[in-house]
């Protein structure tokens, strides 16, 4: 059994916008959400980030609900609610009762973990909050999405660092394609602004001192972000039967592992995943309109990704529009690939390619068309979204417009 899978709902909460319309407005306007850290954190070199502005959890949840919701789970639920509503579904609908809920996260409930450690080890409290386990368990986001939307099919969290979102979406796609489910609410969330994680990113020396400049010669590293993006996937048949609005077909996926260096991206591994996704989708090199790149803004990632694009597309590499939206929404780690698939679906819907902002200087190692600084009106019928994680875990998703 192999069924066509489509995207029928989108939901986002991000520094670049706390719902899909606001997120899309930032993308098409090329408006970066990278700002000075608020509040600034003593003892941390990272000074800029893409953080939610004026986010008030109480506007979304009751005090009782919040006692069980780590920040990463809050954002997953908020994005899932929007995606489900966008798909024309509602809590406890029959379509949701049998649905899957699969949430990716790189960091999971680190806020709760670190708060607990501070209470125990720094403040030397004798007791912890009785809900620490259910709030802080890595799987909490899937449980909370299930609970808040009445989803009663398979639900779990998976973690593959910066590919978490793509892996979660591919898992949902596989379940629907195989007939295990008709509907899946999938995506990813990450809330990485804890003291311990900031110190750890400092130590790895890959975060830029000022901003993110993907593919630009003067790029100096990534900028951390936070947020969540969730999508409603369903079989094409199911979507058409109920008259759902379809954004695009999830036409192909590719997954590979480098089995090599723990942080350095690998042309071979990336190329394998890209090729798999395009082959499964039936997209030839010359037919690919757009690549939403991983494009972190590190010297190594952007040059290596460019080499992989050249290897996979050959002479067509120069003709494809490529952009990294990370300079707009930041690198929200596990959530990034889900945010970027939403960005890709919106690109196809609106026929506007969001730009790679902060691009200032051409690099001989990155000689392709990165749609620098200004959005471009262009019909996009085929696209791929690239995601590559520390640990050498690559995931690529191919979308095709349904005509």
């Amino acid at each position: 059994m192999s069924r066509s899978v489509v995207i029928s709902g989108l939901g986002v909460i991000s520094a670049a916008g706390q719902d899909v319309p606001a997120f899309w407005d930032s993308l098409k306007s090329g408006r970066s959400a990278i700002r000075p850290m608020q509040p600034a954190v003593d003892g941390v070199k990272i000074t800029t980030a893409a953080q939610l502005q004026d986010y008030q959890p109480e506007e979304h949840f009751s005090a009782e609900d919040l006692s069980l919701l780590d920040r990463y789970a809050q954002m997953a639920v908020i994005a899932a609610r929007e995606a489900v509503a966008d798909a024309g579904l509602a809590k406890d609908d029959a379509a949701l009762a049998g649905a899957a809920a699969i949430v990716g996260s790189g960091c999971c409930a680190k806020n709760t973990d670190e708060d607990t450690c501070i209470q125990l080890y720094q403040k030397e409290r004798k007791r912890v909050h009785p809900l620490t386990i259910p709030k802080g368990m890595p799987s909490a986001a899937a449980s909370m999405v299930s609970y808040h939307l009445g989803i009663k099919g398979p639900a779990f969290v998976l973690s593959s660092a910066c590919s978490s979102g793509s892996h979660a979406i591919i898992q949902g796609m596989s379940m629907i394609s195989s007939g295990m489910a008709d509907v899946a609410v999938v995506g990813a969330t990450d809330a990485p602004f804890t003291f311990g994680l900031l110190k750890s990113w400092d130590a790895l020396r890959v975060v830029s001192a000022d901003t993110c400049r993907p593919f630009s010669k003067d790029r100096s590293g990534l900028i951390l972000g936070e947020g969540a993006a969730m999508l409603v996937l369903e079989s094409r048949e199911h979507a058409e039967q109920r008259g759902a609005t379809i954004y695009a077909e999830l036409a192909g996926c590719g997954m590979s592992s480098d089995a090599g260096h723990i942080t350095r991206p690998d042309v071979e591994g990336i190329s394998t995943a890209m090729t798999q996704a395009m082959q499964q989708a039936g997209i030839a090199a010359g037919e690919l309109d757009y690549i939403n790149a991983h494009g972190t803004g590190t010297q190594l990632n952007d040059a290596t990704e460019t080499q992989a694009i050249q290897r996979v597309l050959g002479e067509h590499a120069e003709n494809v529009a490529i952009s990294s939206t990370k300079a707009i929404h930041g690198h929200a780690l596990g959530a990034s690939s889900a945010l970027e698939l939403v960005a890709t679906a919106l690109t196809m819907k609106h026929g506007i390619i969001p730009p790679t902002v902060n691009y200032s200087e051409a690099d001989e190692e990155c000689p392709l068309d990165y749609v620098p600084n200004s959005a471009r009106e262009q019909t996009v019928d085929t696209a791929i979204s690239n995601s590559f994680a520390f640990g050498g875990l690559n995931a690529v998703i191919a979308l095709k417009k349904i005509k």
Partner: protein
Amino acid sequence: MSFEKIVDIIVDTVHCKPEDVKPESELAALGVGSLEAITVIFELEEAFDIEIPNEVIPSIVTVNDILTRLEEARQ
């Protein structure tokens, strides 16, 4: 004293032979890749109570470059 400490840090990080670590030795040839480099720099910062900024890391190619950067950081 500084040189001996640097040798200790490199040997502890990449498990090369101490006699192979000479001022003119290239770090890459000793097995210091990108991850080992940030580990060596972390240990240097700890041992000498200094801070080595990210921007200078690409200019550190040989053991001698470490000694130079160390002197700069101490000034």
